[in-house]
């Protein structure tokens, strides 16, 4: 067991983990932050995307110990002071989710996309940038619309 500490959604947290514990396990099991999901075992679905030091990563593919000292944001940390993040608003407004399982990862990937590519995004760019996120419900149509709108409002 190794002791680790990090800042998750602005709060200092610590815990003891095995060397093989994944970041997503630490978030879900140690911290009870179950908004971050696990949809696969080959790092391909993106349900687990969180931000580590401001960049989107797949938390199923990062060891918790490797994130010792990092700043982590999960979907639970997107809304600030009870106010939804513009990307969350946009997903609701444009019906960018159905079962909601892929949604946390989609949201975190979308915010990261805007951080990297700016607020004006065309459809092609958005579709291309979503290559690491699978949604089985929406057919992506409304996710693309939501991200476009959310980006403008960020």
């Amino acid at each position, binding site marked *: 067991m190794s002791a680790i500490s990090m800042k998750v959604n602005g709060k200092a947290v610590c815990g003891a983990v095995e060397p093989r514990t994944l970041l997503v396990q630490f978030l879900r099991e140690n911290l009870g932050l179950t908004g971050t999901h696990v949809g696969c075992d080959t790092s391909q679905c993106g349900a687990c995307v969180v931000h580590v030091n401001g960049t989107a990563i797949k938390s199923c593919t990062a060891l918790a110990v490797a994130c010792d000292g990092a700043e982590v944001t999960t979907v639970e940390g997107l809304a600030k002071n009870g106010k939804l993040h513009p990307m969350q608003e946009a997903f609701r407004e444009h019906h960018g989710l159905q*079962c909601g399982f892929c949604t946390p990862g989609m949201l975190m990937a979308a915010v990261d996309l805007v951080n990297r590519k700016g607020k004006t995004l065309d459809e092609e760019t958005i579709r291309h940038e*979503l290559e690491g996120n699978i949604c089985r*419900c929406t057919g992506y149509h409304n996710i693309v619309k939501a991200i476009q709108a959310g980006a403008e409002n960020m």
Partner: protein
Amino acid sequence: MDTGIGARVRRKEDHRFITGKGQYTDDINLKDQTYAYFVRSPHAHATIKSIKEPEWAPEDGVVAVFTGEHVAEDKIGGLICGWMIHSKDGSPMKAGPHPILAQGKARYVGDHVAVVIAETKEQAKAAAARVDVTYGVLPHVVDVAKATKSKAQIHDVAPDNTVFEWSLGDKAATEAAFQRAHHVTKLDLVNNRLIPNAMEPRAAIGSYDSGSDHYTLYTTSQNPHVARLVISAFHGLAPEHKLRVIAPDVGGGFGSKIFIYAEEVVCVWASKRIGGRPIKWTAERTESFLADAHGRDHVTHAELAMDKDGHILGLKCHTLASMGAYLSTFASCVPTYLYATLLSGQYAIPAIYAEVDAIYTNTAPVDAYRGAGRPEATYLVERIVETAAREMKIDPAEFRRRNFVTSFPHQTPVIMTYDAGDYDASLKKALEIADYKGFPARKAAAAKQGKLRGIGFANYIEACGIAPSAAVGSLGAGVGLWESAEVRVNPVGTIEVLTGSHSHGQGHETTFAQLVSDRLGVDINSVAIVHGDTDKVQFGMGTYGSRSGAVGMSAISKALDKVEAKARKIAAHVMEAAEGDIEFKNGSFSVKGTDKKMAFGEVALAAYVAHKFPTSEIEPGLKETAFYDPSNFTFPAGCHICEVEIDTETGVTEIVSWTAVDDFGTVINPMIVEGQVHGGITQGIGQALTEGCVYDSESGQLLTGSYMDYCMPRATDVPSFKLGFTETKCPSNPLGMKGCGEAGAIAAPAAVMNAMTDALGVKDLAMPASPHTVWKTLQATKMAAE
């Protein structure tokens, strides 16, 4: 803001999902919980000679290991198939035993052989790898087309691996129609096997409370009450009042979460065995690939007979349908009553004859997957109709128009009575939206870029909201297919609706509340929809077959009728007026010709205070229940038009345009309905272009067991869609709804493949039409031309 029927109300459930507060089964943890990991067969077909545990050390954390022997000791019954099909010769289908842990034999790679229960997930998994199973490998067969002649004998009860040989329709009349034919079109089709892949993997937590001798099961289910019924009545675990099944937030189902699976039964059964500690199991994605029920897997030969003007005279087909290694919960009705009954499509076909052989293979069980039988029917009908039009050199739109059913009700030769529709209206609208007239110019422009452009239609019809119960019972169903609803009005006028439908992405918390808001004139935010818990909702049949609107909401509507009727009575007493003079509009009761008025909430309060009406005549309180059994199936139908461009150098296909015009009858929330259509089309495009489950015939191994090998459609694989709606009300339910959940998945594969065969100028092309498949076709065409 309008929140009634037809309004684009934003979803009430979204807040918890976008803030990470959804509660899916794996998000739930019970005190003192243990973890299960299943030992699965590495062989496609093998006897189990022995199962040995090593000496466990305390640090292994192993709580228990259970096998089929323990299951037998406790007399826990096997998994069942709830729909009886009889063969042509009258013999009942041949269902082999399906124990929740294998007994004596494993029949597919991934079959559940034993379970290890340990303190942590990691320990359970590590220990499972150390359970020593000795197998005696047997011959296997994974290919449905080879299974009847194979050396593999999968179940003793089923010689030649044949479950049933079933037929529907009038053989003699159909043969006679073919005798008269001017032209016959023949087509061989494979409906490729799919793996459903809801993004939330299946999961379960079973727990037993010895204090009250009561079991609880949390599970990823589309129909928790059916799960409770089956676990109680067939597995014999506990009577229904001693078993609570909760299906909390469920991350997509698409059919795959209808069925009762071994893993959930094992978790709830084994909890008692380990002294009542809860047992949690969450599938890894690999297990979802191996052990979720798969979909489709048909091999079909079909023929269509026409007169000289292109009027269809008859259709006949023979289909081999893989059932996998065991009959899953509803497996037998999918390639029969959900398939052959739709072979008339949107067309007036005088004679139809279909033969379906259901076959065991050493593969995961096959059962309903989005559309369930109806995509297979539409694929057959729309591919052969398009091919016939091309062969007879008739415009495919015109060919369809000539054959449309135009008067209703229409009795097809394959059981169904279509109750309402206007197929020409959908076609016309789709042609406009798709700019059909402009296609030749677009094709020419594409050709200049070195691309082959093609256009394809799919004029699908489906049957949803399967009912009435007596009719499905006569066809072999083991259950009734009604739905229940309870409307509880609280004293302050807020409302809880308890429904037997289950939402796993469909947005019931919003659409069902819209209905209540519309009917009672109350704020949508004072309505809560309760579902997914057998302790709260009395009974229900769950959600599948696009039934929640047509059947589930109709039940709510019936209960609302009763609430309104009682509220009228109470309002009459309170306002001292005759009941006949009470009017109810926009959420308030008024007395005709006076200014006397009571808001709905005031009447609710009066109902509970019960001071102002004779309780000997009217019971206090305001709560009503309804069980609704529809009078017929519903028949959503529409026209999808797909345009593709194929890169001749690489074989890569791009879907450049998609038009969908659907007739779903009454639409409660267009935003949600559009979302259902988008998702369905994308799954259908997946089937046509990217997805295909492959078992290696030599080894029997699943070759597509991860997202690296099974190609899910991603955002770049699909376009944005152009949607339109036409509306004919369904006369068979009070709301006029038809259902929308499966339409896209039903229409899309045929539309894509018709477009691709048009672009390539070929008759046959296999799904999934990957770039490699297309490239090979292009090379073959080139060689033939040279």
